[in-house]
């Protein structure tokens, strides 16, 4: 039985080093094929007729005129007469035609009649007006300790409101697929984060045996949690193809639909009361929170975030509204909970006349197992930001029109390695192939697999061919919850260790020794401590004609992965009090994530989180119009994403080495996106001397908060 563990720090040639992602060259040369780029012979195009009303009942659908349009091939009713539609932009009918323009023209001539129903699309009000009383779904209050006693024992209590609106995922590659039937078998190219999962979903929905379905996703143009389902449009593409005699049907959402229905991160608002002793010891927490996120309501953020305050009372209300339904988005529920909690603690620190870092430090005992890591991270961040040397109480950091401020926040994320299966084949010519159904959504799945296999065999990553993104390969879980890196690394490590052991068996006799006496190094395979006798290629030739294949999976034996990553972030901002414009000067992110497989792509994940964080802190909001019931900024012009000049100086510090590496791999795709909202909001409060209660911190909100302060 092999031992499964990671090489010791001094022995790692690739793991933890800075390796360029293996599919980088394909991506910089336009050769990477995304779903949107799949053009098959005989392919036809589909367009979806979408409901223009936020709440309606479908009365009738007439496709007669559409069927007479030039190029028309097929029509598929997605939601038929009698169906209640809960958001504008929802799918009603899909039309396929010879080319995209014909499909659009034919879809335009479908006649759908609706009974319009009252709708609610706004979300900042916890008490929606009378017709929507049933939209309000209060959850039972939860109590810990004695909240009344906690507040009466507090020397200082603050009470305030905070919130953040719904934002959208904004995948640059919209959702969609290319579906084609050959006899009774279905092949689907789809932009997804769940290659294996989609095959199961299609099988169940279309009632086709799963072994007749192949899902292919070579490259995905962004997911962030929005691409975990086949979706109604995914099923429609398959149905249209069937009707069109199996012709490949390309159905990609247009930008408007992608923004309006393809992504939605729930909002979160709260009225928070928090109390502490004069030395900063947290005593009591009370929150009434609410959130929206379409038909399912919003999600409940875990309040209070991180700190197990001894006396708590919290009550959350889900509010249903008529917008495209919530999809999980990078660190689901956490950025919301973090903002609501860390803003309140920052306001409390201000009232205590305390440095907020000292307030956090004072309450480390409320963080359970991770307090030692947070202490180290706060100290590291302090150094990188020069916090202690620079921080001053609110409104006193600088004077003049442009005010500078510092803010701090902290977060945690599980990042538990998910289920992952792969096969690893060593061929007699020495080439190596790793296969897994999994997907690479930009996080570096291929790179992780190549690095770990290469490390085990003392090869370089380019010697490892990685084939992923095909549901006929060994099943792997969806990429969500930052689980892919840990699952992939652990599974391929187990497969590689087993394959190497089997290869040693094959070559031992030729070397006149036993397998347990062998080791692999850059020069090849040889007796431990001695000279390599066979190059890798020579050793593999001993396999004869049959390649050697081993499978690996996670979970499995050995401590190769863990969960529970935490981080600290500090933001330095400048706010123009004349225009209300907030600029990022610098953000420091200190993050732990166990054993790092690839420094370069891990750093990229943290940078990416910070940049997405700047976006949702300063610019992003799904703007809904209550009269129209529609999203007003369903494009990339008025849905403002962060640009290259908006990010300031980003300083990323990964906690590595002793005390971190031994835990194994922990996913790092999400944790760092949690804190920016609170860190930036706190920095703005520090700059201005007043809290801007709601994100995004747009000029109008900043100026309104300043107006309030002046009164």
């Amino acid at each position, binding site marked *: 039985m092999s031992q499964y563990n990671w090489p010791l720090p001094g022995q790692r040639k690739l793991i933890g080093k800075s390796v360029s*992602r293996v599919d980088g060259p394909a991506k910089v*040369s336009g050769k990477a094929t*995304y779903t949107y780029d799949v053009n098959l012979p005989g392919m036809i195009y589909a367009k979806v007729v979408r409901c223009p009303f936020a709440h309606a009942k479908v009365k009738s659908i007439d496709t007669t005129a559409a069927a007479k349009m030039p190029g028309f091939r097929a029509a598929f009713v997605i939601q038929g007469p009698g169906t209640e539609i809960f958001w504008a932009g929802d799918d009603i009918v899909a039309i396929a035609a010879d080319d995209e323009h014909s499909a659009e023209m034919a879809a335009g001539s479908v006649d759908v009649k609706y009974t319009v129903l009252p709708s609610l699309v706004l979300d900042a009000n916890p008490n929606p007006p009378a017709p929507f009383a049933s939209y309000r779904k209060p959850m039972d209050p939860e109590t810990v300790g004695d909240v009344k006693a906690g507040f009466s024992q507090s020397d200082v209590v603050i009470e305030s409101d905070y919130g953040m609106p719904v934002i959208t995922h904004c995948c640059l590659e919209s959702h969609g697929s290319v579906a084609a039937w050959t006899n009774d078998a279905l092949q689907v190219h789809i932009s997804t984060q769940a290659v294996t999962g989609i095959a199961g979903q299609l099988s169940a929905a279309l009632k086709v045996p799963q072994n007749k379905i192949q899902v292919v996703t070579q490259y995905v143009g962004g997911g962030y949690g929005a691409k975990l389902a086949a979706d109604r449009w995914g099923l429609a593409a398959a149905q249209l193809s069937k009707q069109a005699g199996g012709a490949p049907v390309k159905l990609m959402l*247009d*930008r408007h639909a992608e923004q309006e229905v393809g992504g939605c991160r729930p909002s979160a608002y709260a009225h928070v009361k928090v109390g502490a002793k004069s030395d900063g010891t947290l005593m009591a927490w009370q929150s009434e929170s609410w959130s929206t996120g379409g038909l399912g309501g919003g999600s409940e953020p875990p309040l209070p975030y991180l700190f197990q305050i001894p006396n708590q009372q919290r009550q959350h209300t889900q509010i249903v509204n008529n917008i495209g339904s919530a999809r999980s988005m990078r660190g689901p529920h956490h950025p919301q909970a973090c903002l609501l909690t860390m803003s309140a603690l920052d306001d409390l620190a201000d009232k205590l006349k305390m440095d907020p870092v000292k307030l956090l430090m004072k309450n480390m005992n409320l963080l359970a197992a991770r307090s030692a890591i947070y202490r180290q991270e706060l100290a590291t961040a302090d150094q990188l930001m020069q916090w202690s040397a620079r921080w001053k109480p609110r409104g006193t950091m600088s004077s003049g029109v442009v005010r500078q401020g510092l803010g701090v926040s902290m977060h945690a994320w599980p990042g538990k390695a998910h289920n992952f299966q792969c096969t690893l084949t060593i061929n007699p010519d020495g080439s190596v192939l790793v296969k897994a159904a999994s997907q690479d959504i*930009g996080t570096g799945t291929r790179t992780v697999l190549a690095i770990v296999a290469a490390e085990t065999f003392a090869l370089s990553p380019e010697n490892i061919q990685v084939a992923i993104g095909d549901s006929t390969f060994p099943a792997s879980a969806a990429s969500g919850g930052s689980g892919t890196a840990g699952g992939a690394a652990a599974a391929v490590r187990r497969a590689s260790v087993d394959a190497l052991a089997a290869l040693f068996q094959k070559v031992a006799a030729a070397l006149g020794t036993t397998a347990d006496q062998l080791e692999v190094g850059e020069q090849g395979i040889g007796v431990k401590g001695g000279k390599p006798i066979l190059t890798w290629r020579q050793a593999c030739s001993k396999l004869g004609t049959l390649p050697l294949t081993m499978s690996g999976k996670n979970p499995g034996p050995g401590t190769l992965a863990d969960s529970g990553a935490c981080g600290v972030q500090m933001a330095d901002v400048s706010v123009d009090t004349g225009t209300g414009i907030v600029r990022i000067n610098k953000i420091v992110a200190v993050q732990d994530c166990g054993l790092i497989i690839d420094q370069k792509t891990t750093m990229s994940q943290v940078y*990416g989180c910070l940049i*997405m964080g700047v976006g949702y802190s300063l610019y992003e909001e799904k703007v809904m119009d209550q009269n129209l019931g529609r999203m007003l900024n369903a494009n990339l012009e008025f849905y403002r994403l962060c640009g290259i000049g908006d990010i300031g100086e980003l300083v990323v510090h990964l906690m590595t080495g002793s005390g971190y590496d031994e835990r194994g791999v922990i996913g790092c795709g999400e944790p760092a996106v949690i804190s920016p909202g609170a860190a930036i909001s706190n920095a703005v409060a520090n700059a201005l001397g007043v809290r801007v209660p709601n994100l995004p911190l747009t000029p109008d909100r900043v100026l309104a908060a300043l107006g309030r302060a002046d009164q």
Partner: protein
Amino acid sequence: MREFWGLTGAKRVCDRATCGACTVLVDGKREYACALLAIDVQDREITTIESLGANGDLDPVQQAFVDNDALQCGFCTAGFVMSCKGFLAELPSPTHEDILKGMSGNLCRCGTYAGIQQAVAQAAAAMAAKPRPAGLKIRRPNRSRS
């Protein structure tokens, strides 16, 4: 471009000249392909990402993007690479400030801007170190896109 010639490197994203994922060079100058009618660019030289890196080698801009991990999902990358090509032709030795302004016509959702800033600087340095190919017109700095 994407359907008739199979040149799918340029991406379709915003469809209204906002995000730059479709960036190509027209007579050496950056343009949003989604906002150009084919009929309007007849007889003009269009350079797409597919023509970069002849002989299988990566172009210095492409290499800089790989080296600095200036990409994640990669959907915006071809547009950024082409934009960088055009930008460095306009302004071969940009300052950091120039890069922030000159590359601001493209959007990325994964958040790769930190790597892109470094990549553009590296590419500029690499291209400055190499002699310019004969016959390439050196253009006046043009920052109108900022």
